[in-house]
């Protein structure tokens, strides 16, 4: 009988410890927000930077591994032209990778871009791995406080091919580099 009491007592003690751990006072929950005042747009966006996420206009999924984001077949960002770009122009750079899963299915991808509706030359990619899409942008396209950059892929993984999401490329950074 004593043995029975001890073993069951240990079990009941475990439950009591669990219950006591749960009995915390009500009303202590709060999460602070970041009140930034008037944050500036940036010229270079890192996929994982929460301050720049607002400039990822459309066609991006959540950050993964705290470093990159999948895009859809079309995606758009807003960038601040770097200082002096309105006179000297700038270079648009998109760093991304093409996973094997994409290349295995689509064989080749052609990426095209446009700034404020002005098309730039596209480029084709046939190999998996890291790539850089870089184009000179004339000064005439870089006036104003911000420019909208649209990208499009001719082939991508449509929803349901590999997973439920439509998947394009894996973006790490995109931005305008001063000349």
């Amino acid at each position, binding site marked *: 009988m004593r043995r029975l009491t001890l073993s069951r007592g240990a079990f009941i003690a475990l439950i009591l410890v669990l219950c006591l751990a749960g009995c915390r006072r009500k009303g202590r929950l709060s999460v602070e927000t970041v009140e930034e*005042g008037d944050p500036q747009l940036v010229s270079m966006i890192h996929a994982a930077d929460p301050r720049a996420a607002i400039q990822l206009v459309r066609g991006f999924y959540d950050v993964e591994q705290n470093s990159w984001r999948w895009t859809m077949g079309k995606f758009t960002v807003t960038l601040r032209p770097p200082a002096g770009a309105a006179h000297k122009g700038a270079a648009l750079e998109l760093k991304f990778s093409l996973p094997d899963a994409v290349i295995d299915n689509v064989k080749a991808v052609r990426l095209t871009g446009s700034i404020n509706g002005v098309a730039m030359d596209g480029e084709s990619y046939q190999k998996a791995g890291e790539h850089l899409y870089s184009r000179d942008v004339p000064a005439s396209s870089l006036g104003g406080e911000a420019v909208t950059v649209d990208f499009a892929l001719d082939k991508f993984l449509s929803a349901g091919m590999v997973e439920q999401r439509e998947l394009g490329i894996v973006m790490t950074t995109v931005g305008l580099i001063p000349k």
Partner: protein
Amino acid sequence: MRLAARAGVWILPPLFSLAVYWPGLWAWFQQDDFAWLGLHLSIHEPSDFWRAMFAPMAQGTIRPLSERAFFLTFHALFGLDALPFRVAVFATQCVNLALLLSIVRRMTGSRGAALVAAIVWAANPALGVPMSWTSSYNQILCATFLLGAFRCWLQYVDSGQRRWYVAQAAIFVAGFGALEINAVYPALVAAHVACCARSRWRAALPLFVVSAAYGLLRTSVVEPAVAGPYVMHFDAELPVTLGRYWFAVLGASRLDELPAVAPWRTWTDGAAWLLCGAIAGFVATRLWRRDWPAAIGVLWFGALIAPVLPLRDHFSDYYLTLPALGLALVAGWAWSSARRTGARAAVLALAGIYVTLSAPLGRAIADYNRDRSDAVRNLVLGVARAHELHPGKTILLSGVGTDLFWSGVFDKPFRILGVNDVWLAPGSEENIGRHPELGEVGDFVFPAGPALRVLAREKAVVYAAGGDRLRNVTPTWHKLALQRWKPELARRVDAGNEAFSDQLGPGWYPIEGGYRWMSARAVVWLAGPTGGGQKLRIAGFCPAAQLSNGLVRLTIRADGESIGTATLETPDAPFENSFPLPATLTGREKVEFVLDVDRAFVPPGDGRQLGAAFGIISIR
């Protein structure tokens, strides 16, 4: 030493469960949790309480103990502190493991078999969801009732004492408050009678009568689903679904949809085939030797999975929480049947393979739900903080992705904190995956035109989700929005929200409780439809007093042309109607809709002529 070993049998399974599902103890709320946490908002008078407790909700389910009472009580005591909820789930699971230990010990006479069974059940990845998502507490609590009742049944079989039979019957009946699957309890008892206690067959019969009565009662109050994933299919797919669940309970499941689980897939598939062969061989051998109790585990699995097999389009791993008890019984019986050292080593090896592959799966699911609910917590409590900082302002959320939307926005968690004017920022819908079977993302998006207007009047703030905290990005977002959109009319107006008052013309009264009354005639302006086939949709509420003198007819004209008449006829109920729009309205910047009721009423002591109370008016 023997004392420590005996105590270890009791303590090891709960500690093992705690270790595997530890992240689940710290998970916050998500998805359906918010529907149950907000249940108290629907209770205004005593009769509402009974409706909240027992009216069919969420796919026609009635689970007063595991959902309604659980969430109402714990929310009243602890608010949105999730830890007490989680502790209750873990404590209940500890009780379940103790009951399972006791049952297997009683059936096999072996403490080792009891320990093996309890560990096998605790390790099953199907438990990953219930052990880390509070809304699926129904599975854990149902196990308590099933195992508790069955333990009393065993006492009755042993002793013949009527009080144990009454106790098991009482626990069985109470179990209907946890989960509908409780109805298969008589089949569990029948399996035991057939294999171990045939002289007690008469005692099992009344249990079937209770389940049949429950089934009749439920079908009389719950409409069967006619569309969507909860439609029941009694067709040739049933064996296929059974096979999928059988392999899933052995560890090979579609859990690879979770990124954290994907690397395990190859191993779990191979192990599932190995275990499947071993179980088939063991059960066949024992039955050949007329060792009938060896079949109980398989029979329990079949009985407990049977109710969900017709849900062909809603395969869910956590539905295996209860059927996995059958697997545990098989494992326990295999241990007790293995007399020789070699046989026991084989059982231990198989159980070891199963636990080694299954427990990390369960852990990965618990990790996933903890991380997912953390993001929801940051969003929901962040919105509450933003509301404190900017009282009276509309809150717009940008950067909400697919997962965060469906886990932390769709079930309207903000209303539980008294924050009702929260919307997704315009354009958010472009980054959120669609699930039309669940709902429309667009219903949560604040239209661009009104957004620009309320921001210009400093009546709104914009916060960006992502990262540990919400970020106030109002000025930057406003600048970008001015580049992207014009302050045009919206196609969706919430009459009960001041931000849309610019689009309401003559004939409207001030907002009352999320609605706005019109007089006998009222005007609303919307942007015209974007394409053919779109409809004007109106939604509102019809108080009983409005119908005291008969039905009310509501006629609508669009730019002078009648588009239809709706009849308000259900007292104290929301109404929703839609009207096809003429193609000639397509593309117009502004369409004037005139709403007329054939009979307004004047509430006593009010003096106003009231036509109808409106919420959302939209073109879709």
